[in-house]
């Protein structure tokens, strides 16, 4: 397969086949496939931050949860309309990112991680206390979308592929390359007359919005929104997915999400105690033996 064009056609066909095949599934298998896709969207968005911008965020649950609550609240008032809830989820999550980014981006490394976590905890606390809007610890029921699970899966997977294609293009553009330059040396990037801050800012806002989309899909998928969606462990799960799949490749996020969701489902069908133990062991093995995640094995 020396011809790169032939290679691209084959890879494209395989991706499409893998993406479309679950549409033939039913019941729990289809449920898991949807779960994989919506987590993949959030993981790909986090990959943009971790792998390309060098921003390790531990606050992604906030954007995920904001998207989910937006979907529930909009559905309750305007009826279950996927286009509307997706738009609302994206805007609310991106807005929260836009507001918190100036403070978060003042710090780097472990401090960035702590500040994003702190902002996410603010969202969690608000969701917990603001009972009249969020239902507090009771959560909110999301009315069913007027579509089959198969169609919902196809829409979700189309959205995922669209996001990956868009981000891949963005990352090849000057914007994406400057973002990567800022990760490698902020001093140099600024000395080139490029404002590292604003590149990171817009990447953070975009990742926030995309994570909001994942939250919207999650709300419709489960027909329920609860405090668990904004819980900080959700942020950890997303980071684990990115590390499993491998940062610095968008497909890494997809692979990480698939491995995590399927492994978790498989283990919990056998035991209810060892889930995190096995996932932890897998993560350790991946980090020790591949360094760049599972994607590096596929892409070798």
């Amino acid at each position, binding site marked *: 397969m020396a011809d790169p064009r032939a290679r691209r056609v084959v890879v494209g066909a395989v991706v499409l086949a893998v993406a479309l095949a679950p549409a033939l599934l039913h019941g729990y298998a289809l449920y898991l496939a949807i779960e994989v896709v919506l987590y993949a969207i959030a993981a790909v968005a986090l990959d943009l931050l971790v792998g390309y911008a060098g921003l390790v965020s531990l606050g992604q649950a906030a954007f995920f949860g904001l998207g989910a609550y937006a979907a529930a609240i909009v559905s309750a008032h305007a009826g279950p309309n996927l286009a509307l809830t997706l738009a609302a989820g994206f805007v609310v999550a991106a807005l929260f990112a836009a507001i918190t980014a100036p403070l978060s981006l003042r710090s780097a490394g472990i401090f960035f991680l702590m500040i994003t976590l702190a902002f996410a905890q603010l969202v969690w606390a608000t969701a917990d206390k603001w009972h009249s809007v969020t239902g507090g610890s009771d959560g909110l029921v999301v009315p069913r979308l007027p579509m089959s699970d198969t169609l919902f899966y196809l829409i979700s997977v189309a959205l995922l592929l669209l996001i990956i294609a868009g981000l891949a*293009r*963005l990352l*090849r*553009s*000057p*914007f*994406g*390359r*400057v973002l*990567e*330059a800022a990760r*490698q*040396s902020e*001093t*140099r990037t*600024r*000395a*080139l*007359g*490029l*404002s*590292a801050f604003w590149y990171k800012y817009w990447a953070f806002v975009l990742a926030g919005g995309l994570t909001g989309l994942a939250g919207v899909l999650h709300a419709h998928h489960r027909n329920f929104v609860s405090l668990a969606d904004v819980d900080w462990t959700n942020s950890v799960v997303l980071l684990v997915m990115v590390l499993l799949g491998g940062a610095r490749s968008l497909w890494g996020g997809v692979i990480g999400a698939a491995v995590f969701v399927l492994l978790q489902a498989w283990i919990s069908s056998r035991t209810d105690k060892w889930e995190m133990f096995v996932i932890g062991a897998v993560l350790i093995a991946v980090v020790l033996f591949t360094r760049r995640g599972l994607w590096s094995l596929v892409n070798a």
Partner: protein
Amino acid sequence: MPELIVESLEKRFGGVVALDDVDMRVERAERRAIIGPNGAGKSTLFAIISGEEAPTRGSVQIGQQRTTGMPPERVARLGVARTFQTSTVLTDFSVLDNVRVSALRTTGHAWTISAPLDALADCDAAARSALDAVGLGEKANTPAASLSHGEQRQLEIAAALVQRPSLLLLDEPLAGLATVERRRIGALLTGLPRDITVLLIEHDLEFAQSFADRVTVLDNGRVLADGTPREVRENPAVQAVYLGTASPSQATIERPRAGGAPVPLLAALDIASGYGQARVLEDVSIEVSRGEVVAVLGRNGMGKSTLLNTLMGFLPLRAGSISFAGADVSHAPALARARAGIALVPQGRRMLAGLTVGEELRLGARPGPWGLARVTALFPRLAQRERQRSETLSGGEQQMVAIARALVRNPLLLLMDEPSEGLSAALVHSLEESIASLRDDGETVLLAEQNVDLALAVADRVYVLEHGRIVEHESAGALRAHRSRLERFLGL
């Protein structure tokens, strides 16, 4: 018309004054060299001009624009480009992408999202011609991380030139380069378009003086001299800084030496070492005997620190062998060498954040003749400062802490890396006395210095390092009688 005006610039970092009332005026299209010992404030001056650091006081004007306190990206947009002392090449990118990204602002593509970077024809053309200019055209598609140290320097310069600067700041472009690479980069810089205003920091004085129209000499954060290369060369104050002729003590204390063959404590044989791709030391052999003070002289960038860091085990040995106290330590880790009895007074002092002077000294203490009481007797100043955080001390006081910290380890061998750096003349004198008293107590010291007078006053033997090789080895007494032999290597 002036391109750059710097007025009454002052910069303090905690207790250290990096720049003290610096005035400078550089005309448009002028080439200005800025020279001075390490710690003189040269890089700080660049950092303030380019906006990375805000001055404590004073102002900077570039062209017609007052830029004091402006962030670096805005200063860059005024036409200021710079290279960095330690390479900041983007190592995850190809050579070509490094320069393409550097060309984005001037080609107006900084915020383009609609087209891939490699499809921007103007950006690509500018990047390739800049790479050709520095002689890296062939390497365009190699990863920047695989470039040699010298090639990374070339890449830094290409990335600066592609911005079409009106003011170019070059921070030690020749540092750490081997002779061939120095010639290549030197020729490249000399051949730059004459309409670019260039500020050059360089320790290679021959190059700096042949390149520049005017030279500014910084010393201890102050402008010591300013003039044509010839005026500066003949300035007695400048000669004093570089050759130490103004040092108060010329008399040295000859001490009786024990008879018999000296016992070699440290022996390095044909060692080679360096950083990443760059080989800094080549075929260096030195010996230090018990109870001896040995000095390694050389200008900056000649490999003195690399030598001490290699002996300490911070840098891996590429060739040769090192034995210490009869054992082979060629590949022993630094911790093992420290336990075997080698202590390093590092260049730049490296105070431990958050600790007081007393804590720093107690932390490293090991049983032996040197205790807290004895080091504070040597440096009475430290007794007064015992409860103060070491980071907040002045530069000279931090140097005392660094020396005392090494002494309380009661080492068999004390490595000192430019202990006189950043010290005032008076402090250098008291440092000289302390090393002399260490020597009289029978301690073994290997001293890397640029200050010839200090070294000749305290050392038994002297090695001279030039471009990573030993070019001279002589007893200090003989060199005291024939200083001219040193000036060939160290002189202006």
